[in-house]
């Protein structure tokens, strides 16, 4: 069955901060130069912002460059940071650490935001400029010209039953062709994964390393609410060799809302470690419980994030396409901020592409545009400088003293020398290779969730509004389904008849965090995109 095809000047995969910033910038340039440009954004979430999850503490630098009058336009940056606290937790105590100006975790001038709402606002700005937004449609396939350059994308076929057969409502996906396609799928994008192989974009960089971020929104007792208070911690409940920490932000959005969460580096070695349960356990620390007691949890979500930084930046441009945002990965790990760099990368991609897209001499029906100017502009930008200066902080944790060694390194080399040391430390290799065999590790005794401060996984997933059309093939595919290990959606259930267990994949519960694809030691899991508009329904996460 033939697919319907349509043409645009630029197609952007992913309606997040990077994709929308690129779209807005393209339209701004088009209007400035009085040119017509068709820009289409496809986004797998049912509405813009519904798959967005982040702390988040936003540095408004890129936003002010993109939309200088963001305040007048009602951007939801309602909570300037008023108090910045950093501490090392032990099981019972909290050791405050002073945040000297110049340290990456100093948040003066930044805003606490509900990133999903900010992304929604960016979407409105984009629509006003004439960008065509298509939420609810997932790009599932990259299309190529005969010469191997990227031609565009195709959305997935819908109406396929669990067993792969077409249902009555079967419809083929559609093809969107473009002169250049921008891929902004966020951390560990599934199309980006294919592109890395296709164009060997990771030949000259280290593999990407990741963390998982888990987050909840709580309405707390008004007496405990201090809007603008920004708290970060490291230490308990993680041991010194497991990278991770927490955040707790008091938002100023009308009601006493706090956004809190926990990040665990996915290079953890103990297979008994459960990031979700570490998060739940952390909330019971006396200093955290005092904030949450009497409060009510209203949302939950999770998402993988990049930690590779400078060393893991791949080649960003290839014939017919460019990578933007957290997909290639520009997160400043010690600052734990990646939104401002994602937005800037989208803007740089747009600026580099604009002159080539509108140049009549370069138009071709049979080849996508190759735009190396993007990579050059990127290397000259503040993203590059910023990521270079913090490049050694995360890898400095790979020493005997773990966390403490890392903090000492940061204090000396970053705070004093601003990252000017001449060496670049390496990461430890793929996260998937880090797990030690279970027999060499001690199981961790996690406390049972108490239903008031800590909760079980299933009720948490229910709060994310996650849903998928149930009669569709599972989107967590296995290359070889004889062995499996993982947490959220996989379980071994006893066979209905006879002995033994079989693998059950509850793809229904998937919140699209991508951690399974990253951490699986056998790299057997391949996350592919389910039917559009499935997945979590985050509201301002």
């Amino acid at each position, binding site marked *: 069955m033939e697919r*319907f095809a*349509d043409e645009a000047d630029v197609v952007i995969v992913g309606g997040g901060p990077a994709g929308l910033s690129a779209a807005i910038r393209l339209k701004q340039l088009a209007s400035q130069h009085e040119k017509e440009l068709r820009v289409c954004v*496809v986004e797998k979430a*049912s*509405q813009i*912002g*519904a798959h967005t999850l982040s702390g988040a503490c936003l540095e408004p630098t890129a936003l002010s460059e993109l939309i200088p009058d963001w305040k007048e336009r009602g951007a939801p940056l309602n909570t300037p940071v008023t108090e910045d606290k950093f501490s090392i937790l032990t099981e019972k105590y909290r050791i405050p650490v002073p945040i000297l100006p110049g340290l990456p975790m100093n948040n003066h001038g930044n805003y606490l935001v509900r990133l*999903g*709402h900010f992304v*929604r606002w960016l979407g409105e700005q984009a629509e006003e400029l004439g960008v065509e937004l*298509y939420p609810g*449609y997932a790009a599932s396939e990259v299309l190529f010209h005969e010469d191997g350059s990227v031609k565009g994308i195709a*959305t997935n076929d*819908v*109406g396929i039953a669990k067993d792969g057969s077409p*249902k*009555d*409502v079967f*419809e083929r*996906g*559609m093809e969107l062709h473009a002169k250049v396609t921008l891929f902004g799928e966020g951390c560990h994008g599934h199309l980006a994964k294919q592109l890395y192989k296709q164009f060997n974009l990771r030949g000259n960089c280290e593999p990407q390393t990741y963390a998982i971020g888990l987050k909840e929104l709580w*309405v707390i007792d008004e007496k405990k609410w201090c809007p603008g208070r920004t708290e970060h911690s490291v230490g308990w409940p993680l041991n010194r060799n497991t990278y991770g920490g927490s955040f707790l932000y008091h938002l100023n959005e009308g*009601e006493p809302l706090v956004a809190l969460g926990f990040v665990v580096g996915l290079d953890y070695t103990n297979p008994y470690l459960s990031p979700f349960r570490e998060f739940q356990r952390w909330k019971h620390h006396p200093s955290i419980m005092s904030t949450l007691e009497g409060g009510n949890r*209203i949302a939950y979500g999770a998402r993988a994030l990049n930690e590779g930084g400078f060393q893991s930046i791949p080649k960003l441009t290839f014939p017919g396409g460019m990578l933007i945002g957290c997909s290639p990965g520009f997160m400043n790990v010690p600052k734990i901020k990646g939104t401002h760099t994602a937005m800037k990368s989208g803007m740089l991609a747009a600026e580099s592409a604009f002159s080539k897209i509108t140049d009549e001499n370069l138009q071709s029906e049979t080849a996508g545009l190759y735009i190396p100017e993007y990579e050059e502009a990127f290397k000259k930008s503040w993203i590059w400088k910023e990521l270079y200066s913090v490049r050694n902080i995360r890898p400095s944790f790979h020493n005997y003293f773990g966390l403490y060694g890392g903090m000492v390194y940061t204090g000396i080399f970053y705070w004093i020398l601003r990252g000017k040391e001449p060496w670049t430390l390496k990461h430890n290799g793929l996260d998937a290779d880090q797990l030690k065999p279970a027999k060499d590790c001690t199981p961790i005794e996690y406390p049972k969730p108490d*239903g008031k401060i800590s909760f079980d996984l299933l009720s948490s997933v*229910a*709060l994310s*509004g*996650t*849903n998928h059309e149930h009669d569709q093939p599972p989107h967590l595919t296995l290359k070889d389904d004889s062995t499996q290990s993982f947490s959220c959606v996989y379980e071994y259930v006893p066979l209905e008849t006879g002995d033994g267990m079989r693998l059950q994949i509850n793809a229904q519960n998937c919140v699209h965090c991508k951690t399974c694809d990253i951490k699986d030691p056998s790299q057997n899991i391949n996350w592919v995109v389910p039917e559009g508009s499935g997945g979590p*329904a985050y*509201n*301002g996460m």
Partner: protein
Amino acid sequence: MSARVLVGVKRVIDYAVKIRVKPDRTGVVTDGVKHSMNPFCEIAVEEAVKLKEKKLVKEVVAVSCGPQQVQETIRTALAMGADRGIHVEVSGKDYETLGPLQVSKIFAALAKKEQADLIILGKQAIDDDCNQTGQMTAALLDWPQGTFASEVTLEADKLKVVREIDGGLETIKINLPAVVTADLRLNTPRYATLPNIMKAKKKKITNVKPADLGVDVSSRLEVLKVEKLKEAGRI
């Protein structure tokens, strides 16, 4: 057949979302929450489009009452195959108190204005579970009604409707013009595919105000409070 069908589509909070009561207990939180077309309205649209594909009706008009956002819901109906849309503008306090009585008055007025031969609605909305709009609309127009329809067939100039009732299935024959309300088993709605969403942007949506139709949307009901049920079995 020159028949024109009016289909009502309601924008409701998506069924998979966990509802939260507003802190002031006057209602539920809707801001930023995922909304979609009421599932029974999807079935109603599908049935109307099927009738058009069988060439039994000539035009399908999708109607929704509410603020600007309901246009997305109308677009989805257009992407499924409706020919044009009517957005009845109701916003603010009026929208919060909009209920079956006012909506049925609006539909009755529109049916006369558009000279509709058939109105298909979902049997109920999943937010208020009223199950009243179809019945009230039929009464206001003095039209026959085939509610809880699990099968609809046109036989000459009459409509044969199989209804889902407590004891099983009841088959009735009603004259046209009529009101039909869709139940779950009537059909499986098709996907609104991306090419159809794109084409739907070119289809027309007309805006109209309730006052233009001579309808007063003020409510005779006052919500005193909305509360979350205490969960059973938890300490």
